[in-house]
């Protein structure tokens, strides 16, 4: 499978593209996402680097934008495409129609936020020009054969990213937000009491997650996706894990052996030691990037 990774700087692009990433994606050069660029020239240098290394670059516009920003985003997208950008990750149907109306031609990829759970939802986005689809992390392999057969698909690596709740229909604020002033982590991670018993929102176990990865690989999903995050050390580790799992998949291990290997690897690595994906770790080690 190929690997696409979310980045937030030219240095990260350089690091991951030279170590086996096939594609990078990033936020626009405006304040839109914490893990995004804010200077267009750095962004353009990143696109040029990807082109030079014969890799792909995508702009992620996976929010819903106000009408006042449509013209800006169109110009921005045009200028990046002129610099060699290969495509745009989309979610906002109004923005997509604005792009179509103004004949912006590029490769559109659906975001997980499009919440496509069936091939008919994919057709809805295909009508709007989307040709490549990110599978929702709560779509199961047994339900996805038709979806995978219909278009090129991308999946998040389940043992690195599998949300407990369905986006974009999870409305819990981040700790400190309205109604969550005493919250330290997201509600999907805290302990509740339920009629005297302990309760946690269900998450899946490693065996389940590894099985998903194996089954989607067999089904023909083409891309593994590593999400953008502020925590660069964690991002680097997730990239290395993804590369390793990809090698295991390509070696043709049987399902049980693969699942056991994944469970052992993830348990040993203990991603908790890097802290949350939302933590800012600007001192993350990218020094070996030219090695």
């Amino acid at each position, binding site marked *: 499978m190929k690997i696409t990774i979310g980045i937030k700087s030219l240095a990260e692009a350089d690091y991951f593209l030279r170590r086996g990433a096939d594609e990078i994606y990033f936020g626009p050069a405006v304040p839109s996402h914490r893990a995004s660029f804010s200077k267009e020239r750095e962004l353009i240098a990143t696109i040029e680097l990807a082109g030079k290394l014969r890799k792909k670059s995508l702009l992620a516009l996976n929010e819903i934008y106000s009408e006042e920003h449509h013209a800006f985003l169109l110009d921005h997208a045009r200028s990046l495409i002129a610099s060699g950008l290969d495509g745009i990750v989309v979610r906002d*149907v109004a923005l997509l129609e604005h792009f179509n109306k103004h004949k912006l031609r590029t490769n559109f990829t659906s975001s997980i936020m499009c919440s496509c759970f069936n*091939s008919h939802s994919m057709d809805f986005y295909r009508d709007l020009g989307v040709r490549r689809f990110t599978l929702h992390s709560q779509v199961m392999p047994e339900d996805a054969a038709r979806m995978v057969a219909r278009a090129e698909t991308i999946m998040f690596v389940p043992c690195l990213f599998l949300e407990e709740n369905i986006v*974009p229909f999870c409305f819990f604020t*981040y700790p400190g937000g309205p109604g969550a002033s005493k919250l330290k982590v997201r509600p999907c991670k805290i302990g509740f009491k339920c*009629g005297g018993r302990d309760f946690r*929102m*269900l998450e899946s176990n490693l065996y389940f997650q590894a099985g998903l990865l194996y089954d989607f690989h067999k089904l023909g999903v083409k891309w593994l996706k590593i999400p953008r995050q502020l925590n660069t050390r964690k991002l680097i580790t997730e990239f290395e894990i993804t590369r390793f799992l990809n090698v295991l998949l390509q070696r043709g291990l049987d399902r049980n052996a693969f699942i056991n290997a994944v469970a052992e690897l993830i348990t040993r690595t203990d991603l908790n030691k890097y802290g949350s994906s939302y933590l800012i770790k600007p001192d993350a080690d990218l020094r070996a990037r030219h090695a």
Partner: protein
Amino acid sequence: MDRAILLSPTLISGRGTPELVKNATVYLGDEFCIHKQPSFRDFAAVRKLSGRNPVLLGTLLTEPAFDRWALLLAECAKKAPGAEVVVNDVGLLRFIDGNYRGRFKLALGRLMTYFFDTKHTRLPGCTRPLLWTGEASAPAARKADLEAEEKSRKSWEDGLDLTPIAYIREFLKRYAIERVETDSEYLFKKYSDGTDMKISYYYPLRLMAMTRFCPFVGGIVQKCKAPCGTSLVRLETRQLDYRLFSKGNAYFAKNKLFKHPRLDRLVVMPLAKSPGFNPLPNKYSSPDRPRA
């Protein structure tokens, strides 16, 4: 004002159901769970029970659930044309438009209205990318630049997550939608000010999250007999400033009822307070820990 009651197909033959559906419009199905989607048999049973066509209610549909919906729509188009359908999946909306345009009355469900206007969950200021740009955070770039950036960030952030109403009006017209539904007072106002749609409001709970990892059955299962029923479980924590509830595979907070001349239908969720249940953590039907 019309009063509607949500009814899961698994509860049609329940003892209290005839009383529950008396003088109410029945919403047959479920907005969150693929295992509680209606069949034509359920439709006919409710019609017999209440004397009128129920409103069909769907969720985000997996491929097998979609296939069952396709069968349901084919039968309803023949035997109950004009029935009302609450759509919560863009694929289903496209499918009905392409195959049955004009044969059903369409409502945009609350997932769909949230699809256009996702609730803000980010914290104010969290979209600032200053720490990641050498130039913007450099000492020379300080005060004036920071103030300008702060202003631009705020304007940018305030505009996020809200689909322009002009686009939504066009979308509603394109798909011949007659009604919109929400549990948000903000969205109610957006649609009442910006469209001439009929508007339904959900009470007494507003959605906080939905998942396929259902606590009642211990995860994602391919078949389910819906043991959750109408059980509403209170989840207690000191970390949230509001009360959180679990019902089936969705989480809710209490909703406020309000008066408004455009409030056309109140959709009520029948609830049975439950002392709690024993969650089944990580017990999946497939795939699971391999056998040794």
